[in-house]
């Protein structure tokens, strides 16, 4: 009995000792990590003139990230000698916010949406850019905002109405009201799992004109969405999903990001889409407050905002450069597919970043509740 008790006591001592050692080790590693940022990159150009290193964060991976690497990262490295690490994120504003507030900022340049830019400026998340962008390299397209002390407009990306070209014989969907027309255009639907864009499409389908969209009549939009909800098979959250759903015939009509359709040759051949009522959103380049490479990051942003790199990216993605000087340099075959091409721009609208910056939190909570009713 006594021997058993001794054995038990020794086991307790050994186990607890190991546990405490492990916790101390974890704590020590955590402290070391706080002293050195996670990214191995993060050196400004040193005084002896050696080029620095920065990390650049943008969305999605796949074709979009590839376009950043080919159009911005590699040319910038060639020109300046600086090393650039390309990182992907999913536009998680909370992640960026907590990073800045904690003071541990391993990112130097981040691509954010216009609504996140508005909100981030109010919450003091962004550093002031030391390098000004002048008219010799950046003139905003008509109706587009100019470069700001805290961010520079990058690209317009669009959510369009998409369907398989061979799906509907005769009359084909023309606008958002056709996605609600389950009689003439039968079949399952797919919509983006976010109220942003969907509320606008619902109001357009309900007869509201583009000019009268904002401020959004949220109750009316949700009432209209109630009509289509039973027919929505998938609320997609990844940009490749609507393309694969349409190509595999699992849905008849879907909202989709135009660049994702452009990115795949198979999708370009099989999927048609409409610019009528398409929703554009503008992205900004920003430098998070607390970045240790504000100078080099600002140089990167100035480079990425100049006409040639922006035109190069547009040729790869068919997303619209916000720089009018870049439009002239886009491949003539790609130009008609750009959101900022005049023929498409006039039929569509820009999602109001001001309205969404103010209302996104309440509307998103209502969206989740509504979807799960």
């Amino acid at each position, binding site marked *: 009995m006594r021997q058993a008790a001794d054995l038990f006591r020794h086991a307790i001592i050994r186990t607890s000792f190991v546990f405490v050692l492990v916790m101390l080790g974890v704590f020590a590693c955590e402290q070391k990590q706080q002293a050195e940022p996670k990214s191995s990159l993060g050196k400004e150009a040193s005084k002896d003139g050696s080029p620095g290193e920065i990390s650049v964060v943008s969305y999605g991976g796949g074709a979009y990230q590839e376009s950043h690497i080919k159009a911005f990262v590699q040319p910038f490295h060639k020109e300046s000698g600086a090393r650039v690490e390309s990182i992907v994120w999913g536009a998680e504003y909370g992640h960026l*916010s907590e990073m800045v507030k904690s003071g541990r900022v391993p990112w130097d340049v981040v691509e954010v949406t216009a609504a996140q830019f508005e909100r981030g400026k109010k919450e003091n998340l962004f550093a002031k850019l030391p390098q000004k962008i002048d008219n010799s390299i950046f003139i905003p397209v008509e109706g587009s905002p100019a470069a700001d002390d805290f961010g520079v407009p990058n690209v317009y990306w669009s959510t369009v109405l998409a369907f398989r070209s061979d799906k509907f014989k005769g009359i084909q969907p023309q606008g958002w009201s056709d996605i609600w027309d389950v009689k003439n255009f039968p079949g399952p639907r797919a919509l983006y799992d976010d109220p942003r864009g969907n509320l606008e499409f619902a109001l357009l389908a309900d007869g509201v004109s583009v000019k009268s969209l904002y401020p959004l009549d949220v109750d009316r939009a949700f009432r209209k969405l109630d009509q289509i909800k039973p027919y929505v098979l998938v*609320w997609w959250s990844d940009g490749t999903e609507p393309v694969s759903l349409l190509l595999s015939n699992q849905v008849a009509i879907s909202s989709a990001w135009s660049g994702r359709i452009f990115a795949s040759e198979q999708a370009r051949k099989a999927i048609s889409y409409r610019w009528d009522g398409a929703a554009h959103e503008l992205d900004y380049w920003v430098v998070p407050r607390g970045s240790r490479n504000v100078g080099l990051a600002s140089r990167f942003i100035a480079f990425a905002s100049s006409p040639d790199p922006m035109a190069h990216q547009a040729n790869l993605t068919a997303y619209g450069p916000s720089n009018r000087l870049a439009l002239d340099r886009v491949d003539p075959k790609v130009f008609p597919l750009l959101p900022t091409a005049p023929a498409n721009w006039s039929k569509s609208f820009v999602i109001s970043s001001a309205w969404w910056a103010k209302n996104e939190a309440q509307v998103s*909570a209502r969206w989740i509740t509504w979807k799960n009713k």
Partner: protein
Amino acid sequence: MRSIQRVLTVALGLAPIILIVGLFVLPLLIWMGGAHVQALSRVSTGSLYLSLITKTVLLSSLAALLAVLMATSVAFLHAFSGVHVRHALNSLIMIPLLVGFLARNYAWLGLLRSMAGSGGSINLYRLIGSLLLYNNRGVVLVMATVFIPFSYFIVLQGFSSLRPEMYEAARTLGASDLRAHMVVTLPIIMRSVILAFGLCGVLALGYFVTPKMIGGGQHDFIGNGVLTLLNKLGDSAGASLLALYLFGTAILPMVLLAWYSVHRRTLLLGD
């Protein structure tokens, strides 16, 4: 020497408890009493919880039940099979655990998509794929397959209490095979079955990947709500509160299970 050993035992035995209290319980109490108390007054978090909790609990319970039923069948086979079959069953059950959870979800998604999109004369595949993809049936099935290994090893412990003499005694008294299993096997394994159900159900409550991927975004769990509030909206207070509500929801069945484990004998035998 013994008194030093005793002190060391107590001190090191208390270390994990102190760490848990210091790193979890105290910050939780400070959070509840701090600035984040404003999140408690927000109607949206409460209504978000109420809109998601029913579906979360229902689908989690169904997934746990399905997992336990499937695991019990395999454990039954294990208990009444030879050594080689037992080893084979143990290996087969362990194989999914070698593959990451996310990979398994993607595998299911790929499989169901190819089944739903399959053409030609194999309509059964298409039917099964369509029945399971992008709805709560698929969510329950995929979650259940993830929980089978956990349920299996818990239920197996219940089967290990069985003795051949019990069945002999039952047959001697005139019981058929089915009756023997009803009066011998079921009561003995019931405790482990209920424990397995409780554990899997509580684990399932926190899921958010499977509902999003296999469910097509149609059926959000509370975890999806937490993710949206935290990552997308930057509302860490609201996300923390929603997670706390979920924690409270999970605590209740665990307390009931613990109470059942302690009082089981009294409940069944009246001791």
